[in-house]
């Protein structure tokens, strides 16, 4: 998002106060809300973005408590974790939608500016489901007083910038310790999450599987090794162990706390998304939504800000998969069909500047299909694939990739800015 937009809008603020419906909101908050919505509209009109950050940024400049004002009176759920939060937020918003209108930050703008924009844009809604960047969870809990907080997972993600995994788990633990009133919905399969959530008096556990174990070999409580067998795990030096889940993925469905199994039909691919759906059902359950009511709504979600989107071009059916860190690459390989696959890697600021993580991903599942590589850092990927004995071909552009594969499915797996580049080639498909 671009700072230059900030200079051209405040004068547009007057005259749109009617958009604010909460009569109890202080005047400054009303003005801030109005300005925020105007700026978002301007940002979209100027073609500079989807307006999901700039409006909130300006609104918070005018009223630092704006997020708290906007959240007050709504039943709020927050969704945080390293991976799956955008998809889970979307599915949760769909599920909670059974009960009434839901405000949500569906473009993945997951810091307080994005939350502020999302709430301002929707006007008053009885519910809000917000994706929260894991670093901001404490701050957003304080501002929005959520009824439910969902904790998905914690794994390595951009070490050159982000806090390390154990420190993040500690931040979460501290954030929740001051709020015993919050219902926590947490992943029983991730030791870091269980430890972070463990002291909350009202915790609902879900089991969605954990494919990535490299960041939880060591118990965050005792420092002893964690053992795993048959989906279970336990610390060898202290009582920390996997809690019994209330919600669990089984086959192509989800078992609810009463023990009933529900078939989960999704347009989103992969077992990972059944896990995300289980989490969404668990969060919605805290609001009183039953799986049978929510499932038809989950089935209607087709893509999320371009993720999983399918585009037909020149006889090729292109499917976009976003993979930002080692854990999500493993999940993408699980989702992808055995079809020609284009991998694209950048290392710009939003991606993290360091490509070392490539060696934490085992690319061997791709040995059985044609692989193309592209992106700013294609050479890093080339060396990695060579070490992994995965044959590949380097292409300079997305068009060249399209021309290089036969008609039919082309799977595209890309990290953040590489994904956005390809999405731009495809008319910013949602």
């Amino acid at each position: 998002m671009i700072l230059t937009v900030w200079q051209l809008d405040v004068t547009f603020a007057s005259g749109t106060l009617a958009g604010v419906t909460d009569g109890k909101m202080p005047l400054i908050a009303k003005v801030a809300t109005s300005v925020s919505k105007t700026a978002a509209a301007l940002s979209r009109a100027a073609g500079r973005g989807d307006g999901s950050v700039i409006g909130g940024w300006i609104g918070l400049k005018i009223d630092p408590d704006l997020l708290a004002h906007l959240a007050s009176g709504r039943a709020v759920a927050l969704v945080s974790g390293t991976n799956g939060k955008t998809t889970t937020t979307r599915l949760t918003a769909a599920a909670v939608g059974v009960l009434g209108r839901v405000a949500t930050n569906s473009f993945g703008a997951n810091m307080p500016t994005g939350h502020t924009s999302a709430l301002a844009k929707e006007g008053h809604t009885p519910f809000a489901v917000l994706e929260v960047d894991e670093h901001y969870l404490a701050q957003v809990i304080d501002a929005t007083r959520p009824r439910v907080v969902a904790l998905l997972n914690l794994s390595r993600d951009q070490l050159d910038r982000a806090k390390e995994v154990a420190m993040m788990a500690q931040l979460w633990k501290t954030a929740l310790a001051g709020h015993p009133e919050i219902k926590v919905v947490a992943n029983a399969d991730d030791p870091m999450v269980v430890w972070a959530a463990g002291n909350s008096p009202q915790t609902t556990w879900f089991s969605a599987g954990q494919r990535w174990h490299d960041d939880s070999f060591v118990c965050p409580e005792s420092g002893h090794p964690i053992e795993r067998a048959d989906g279970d795990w336990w610390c060898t030096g202290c009582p920390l162990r996997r809690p019994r889940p209330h919600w669990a993925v089984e086959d192509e469905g989800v078992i609810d706390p009463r023990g009933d199994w529900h078939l989960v039909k999704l347009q989103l691919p992969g077992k990972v998304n059944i896990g995300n759906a289980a989490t969404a059902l668990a969060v919605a359950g805290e609001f009183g939504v039953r799986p049978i009511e929510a499932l038809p709504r989950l089935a209607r979600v087709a893509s999320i800000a371009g993720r999983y989107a399918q585009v037909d071009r020149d006889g090729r059916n292109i499917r976009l998969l976003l993979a930002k860190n080692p854990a999500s690459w493993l999940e993408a390989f699980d989702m992808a069909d055995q079809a020609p696959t284009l991998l694209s890697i950048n290392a710009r600021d939003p991606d993290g500047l360091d490509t070392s993580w490539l060696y934490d991903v085992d690319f061997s599942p791709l040995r059985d299909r044609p692989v193309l590589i592209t992106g700013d850092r294609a050479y890093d990927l080339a060396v990695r694939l060579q070490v992994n004995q995965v044959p590949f071909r380097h292409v300079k552009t997305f068009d060249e990739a399209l021309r290089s594969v036969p008609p039919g499915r082309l799977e595209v797996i890309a990290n953040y800015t590489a994904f956005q580049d390809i999405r731009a080639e495809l008319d910013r498909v949602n």
Partner: protein
Amino acid sequence: MSTEALRIVWIYPDLLSTYGDRGNMLILARRAADRGIPVETYEVRSDQPMPHTADIYLIGGGEDGPQALAAQRLITDGGLHQAVAQGAAVLAICAGYQLFGHSFYAKGAKCAGLGLLDITSDRGETRAVGELRGDIDPRLGLPPLTGFENHGGRTHLGASAAPLARVTAGIGNDGQTEGAWAGKILGTYSHGPALARNPALADLLLRWATGADRLAPLDDTWADRLRGERLAAPTPA
């Protein structure tokens, strides 16, 4: 070599394994196998005894707590000291590099290192994050070093350790020199899979471990392109 196969040990991946540290083991194994050298790799956890009969030992980066714990356990175990005394080759990265020295700082406290490299480490005022480049000690006869560094440490070399490289971009030990070597031990602040960008360094370790003067050349087209790109990439002034 101690046995017919080349034996590579990755020291304590449960404690010291940040981004891509596994890569160095994968690259060494690949480059040996591509030359018909049989390879065995061992990941030795911190609750297991450290074997002293392997040919190459790898140790990676990590957080302060695990770094201090790893140093303590290696000192108590003694297997690594014995291996080095028997002439094993070592690649030590970041936190692993620091703990090979006499002392280092973790969580504000001075900790005893293994004393296998004549270096001491403390904390810098700023964190060094970004591209790292240097001209490698001419006695090693290798092309320039390229890496990515991400550390808060500063390292000072004693008389019996030589800098691995003279810094041309980035910080390394102190903005002047980068890494250290002595005998068959290499230490560097090039973090994670340092050998991906420096196949010549990988081959140096393989030559040390096998005793071979030369190794059959490999097709390094992609590694050379990667090196060309990274050595030419802009760095902050």
